């Protein structure tokens, strides 16, 4: 028979951390319900939470990193993409100093990931140029 279950999780959209339930219906993600009694959101969501399941199966989602070279953009492996970013960051920092680069975190990352970006900027590269997409 068609199975129905709900999976408690935290809204991926911003740093508030509202509790929500993903509705899994017949093995597919079909909707969202506010998580009643959640200490942060108390059974309420904004429009982003209510629609946060919609992007999961979107055909517009990137399935792999893309590197643009000249006019051509092509899919590459994650290793290659990270290698290019790390190499270019190192080159710019070596040539112009740590404050010539900056880091922008995202509300869509976890708290822990944002912490690590802070570490990378301050402890590895040596710059305080760090900001957050919520300020854009």
């Amino acid at each position, binding site marked *: *028979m068609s199975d129905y279950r709900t999976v*408690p999780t935290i809204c991926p959209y911003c740093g508030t951390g509202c509790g929500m339930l993903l509705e899994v219906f017949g093995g597919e993600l079909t909707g969202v319900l506010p998580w009643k*009694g959640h200490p942060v959101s108390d*059974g*309420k969501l904004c429009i982003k939470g*209510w629609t946060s399941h919609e992007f999961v199966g979107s055909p517009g989602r990137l399935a792999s990193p893309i590197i643009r070279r000249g006019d051509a953009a092509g899919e590459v492996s994650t290793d290659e993409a990270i290698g290019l970013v790390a190499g270019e960051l190192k080159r710019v920092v070596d040539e112009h100093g740590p404050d010539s680069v900056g880091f922008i975190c995202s509300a869509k990352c976890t708290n822990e990931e944002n912490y690590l970006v802070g570490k990378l900027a301050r402890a590895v590269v040596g710059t305080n140029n760090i900001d957050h997409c919520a300020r854009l």
Partner: protein
Amino acid sequence: MAIKDRARDIIGKEVDGVLAFRPEGGSHVPHLFNADDIDQMAGEYPAGERYPVSSIVRRLQAARPGVRLAVVVRGCDERALIELEKQGQVDMEHLVLLGLACDGELAGTCGCAQPYPSEVVQGEKVEGGLDLGMVEKLEGLPPGERLDYWLSRFAACVKCFGCRNVCPLCYCKECALDEPGLVDHGEQPPLLPVFHLIRAVDMAGRCVDCGLCEEACPIGIPLRTLYRKVGEVVESHFEYRPGRSPDKKSPLSVLGTEEDVT
């Protein structure tokens, strides 16, 4: 008898699935149980953890017509199912209701007319009484002040659509609130008071006073007060309360054809 015992008795025999709640991280979340996992079903139903189970039943039945389900229902859930059946959205014949009576505290704060379903399996029946206190209080205000009150509440709307999304009776595939000609996309607050009056009119002859809309509203618009007033108007003109009598159709679902109005 407890609902969980009754569910265990009928699973795999009278029904193929039981829509109830699963304990999860200190709370209880909706889950469709089968014979294999029925033992994980929660035995308690906290007042603050009400979900639109009638909507879930509607979707389950639509995906698999004829599926035999049982569902844990409070008075409001049963009213929603009755109203949904009258509108051809659920099939009560293939549905077993596991009735849950709301406790006195919930019945008091919720203020619905009947805080228990027609057959109670678990809990003690407490008599309700439709709480029209807020409706009467607002009607006591001069019209200008009353208008200011509602406009100020509506102006705080963050347009999350939660009131519609959580509503058991909102099943339309195309919703007026998504229509750019009526509700401008990206405008916030939504054009006053059109957005909220579209919903209020749509609740006429439909709203079963479950209160899930008001619970879901992030900024606390007193939606239930608005829809209770709408319900009062419908009752005074048509002697109809949604979800009450299964054999009487909603007046707004029979009006419209020439035959009915002449």
